[in-house]
C-alpha cells in the first residue's frame, strides 16, 4: 500500500520542528530513521497531514560524556551503537544489544531516540534504558525536561511524550569497573522480533550483588523491569540455588499476554530459561 498524501517539512533546528508541529495543529509526525513510521504510513495505520523530518538537526546528533552520564543524541543510528567507541566503553549493554536489532540495513537507518519514542514492547533499546536506569531528555512547546526510564513507558506504544514533544537525547549512567552486564534474546530467526529478550546490569562487591536491574522485552504491553526478581538477588552471590529462586520469582513479575502464537505459559518458561542462562553468565563475570 501507499501512504496517504502528506506535506513534508525538513527542519534545520529543534525550534523549527516544534513550531511546524504546533502550526499543523499537532496533526503531524516527526520522522527520524522512519524504519517503523514509514511502514505504519504505508499501511495507513497513521495518516498525518504533515511529516517533519528531523534528521538534519545537528543538535540531536553526537555521543559525548556529560558529568556521570553518556549523552547519546537521539539521532544516533543503531549501526553507530556498534561502531562508536564511547558506547562500547561506557554503555556496553547497548553495544551488546545492537546486533540483535532487526537486520543490517534497518540498523543503518533506525535511530536510538526513535526506537525509545516508538516504545515497541518487543524492541531491544527501550527495555535497555530501563536496565541502565537511563534518563530521557524531552523537548516540547513548554520547554525541556528529563524523565527517568522507569517513568517513561506508560502503556502499549504510549510514553511520557506529549503531542508535539520529541526526544533530544538519552542520558546513560557511565558503566563502572564494579559493574557487570548481560544481554540475550530468543527469536525463531535472527533479526525477527524476540519471543522474549532481556538485559541486565549488576553492581557487585566481589561476587556479591549489591544492586541489579533486569529488564525484559516482548513480555507485555511495555518493556518490563522485574523488581521482585531483582530483590531475590540483591545481597547474594549467583549460585545455582539463588538463580533458581530468581527464576521462580519471575512468575509474580511477569504476566505475558495471551497470543495464539506464543501462549503465556510458554513465554514465561522462555523468560525463565533466558534469565537462568544470563545470570549464570553474569556469575562467571560476564
Amino acid at each position, binding site marked *: *500500500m*501507499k*501512504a*496517504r*498524501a*502528506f*506535506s*513534508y*517539512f*525538513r*527542519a*534545520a*533546528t529543534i525550534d*523549527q520542528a516544534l*513550531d*511546524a508541529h504546533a*502550526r*499543523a495543529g499537532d496533526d503531524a509526525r516527526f*520522522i527520524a530513521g*522512519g*524504519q517503523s513510521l*514509514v*511502514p505504519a*504510513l*504505508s*499501511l495507513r495505520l497513521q495518516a498525518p*497531514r*504533515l*511529516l517533519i*523530518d528531523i*534528521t538534519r538537526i545537528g543538535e540531536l546528533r553526537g555521543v559525548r560524556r556529560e558529568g556521570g552520564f553518556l549523552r547519546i543524541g537521539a539521532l544516533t543510528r543503531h*549501526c553507530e551503537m556498534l561502531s562508536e567507541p564511547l558506547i562500547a566503553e561506557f554503555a556496553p549493554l547497548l553495544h551488546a544489544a545492537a*546486533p540483535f536489532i*532487526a*537486520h*543490517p*540495513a*534497518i540498523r*543503518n*537507518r533506525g535511530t536510538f531516540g526513535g526506537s525509545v519514542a516508538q516504545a515497541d514492547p518487543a524492541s531491544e533499546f527501550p527495555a535497555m534504558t530501563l536496565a541502565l536506569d537511563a534518563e530521557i531528555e524531552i523537548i516540547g512547546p513548554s520547554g525541556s525536561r528529563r524523565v527517568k526510564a522507569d517513568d517513561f513507558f506508560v502503556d502499549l506504544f504510549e510514553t511520557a511524550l506529549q503531542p508535539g514533544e520529541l526526544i533530544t537525547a538519552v542520558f546513560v549512567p557511565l558503566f563502572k569497573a564494579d559493574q557487570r552486564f548481560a544481554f540475550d534474546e530468543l527469536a525463531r*530467526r*535472527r*533479526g525477527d522480533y524476540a519471543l522474549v529478550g532481556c538485559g541486565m546490569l549488576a553492581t557487585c562487591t566481589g561476587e556479591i550483588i549489591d544492586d541489579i536491574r533486569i529488564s525484559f522485552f516482548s513480555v507485555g504491553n511495555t518493556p518490563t523491569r522485574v523488581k521482585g526478581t531483582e530483590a531475590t538477588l540483591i545481597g547474594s552471590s549467583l549460585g545455582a540455588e539463588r538463580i533458581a529462586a530468581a527464576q521462580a520469582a519471575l512468575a509474580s513479575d511477569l504476566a505475558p499476554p495471551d497470543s495464539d502464537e506464543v501462549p503465556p505459559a510458554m513465554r514465561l518458561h522462555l523468560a525463565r530459561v533466558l534469565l537462568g542462562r544470563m545470570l549464570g553468565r553474569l556469575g562467571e563475570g560476564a
Partner: protein
Amino acid sequence: MSGFDESLLGDADETVRVRFVVNGRKVACEVAPRETLVDCLRNALELTGTHAGCEMGACGACLVQLDGRAVHSCLMFAVQADGARIDTIEGFTESGVIADLQAEFHRRNALQCGFCTPGMLVSAHELLSQVTRPSRDEIRDALSGNYCRCTGYEAIVDAIDAVARARSESGGAT
C-alpha cells in the same frame, strides 16, 4: 535555511524538487512527498533493477546504498534522500565492483527467479566491504533481512563465501 511555511499544508500532493547523485550522475526530479525512494528510482528514473517487494522493510528486494550504507528504499520517502548519493544495482554492475559476486551467483545457481538477487548482492557487497573473511554464520546474519523464495539460501551463502575466499587469496578487494 527557512522556517516552516504554512502554505505547505494546503496541497499535500504538490510535488517537491529533489536532487540526488544516482550511480555517479547528478539527477533532479519532481516527487510527491509520499513517493517512496524505490518508486522514484523505478518510475521516474527508470532504474528497475531495484525491486519493490513487501514495501515494509521485510524482504530486502529494494536495498540500495545511501551515502555508502545499505538501506531499504521502500522505508524512506524520496524527499528524505534529497542531496544524498544513491547507488543501485545498475551502478554496481556498471562499475564492475561486484562482477565477481555476480559471476559466482551465476556459476552456483544462487538465483532462480532473480527477484531477490539485487538486494542479495547489495547485502553481500556491504558485508564484504566491512568483513574480509566472514564466517558462514556471519554471511547468514548479513542476509537475515533478504528473503529468497526459490533457492533455500545455501547456494547464495556458498557464492558469497567463495568470493570472500577468492578476494582474500588474491590479496585485496576488487
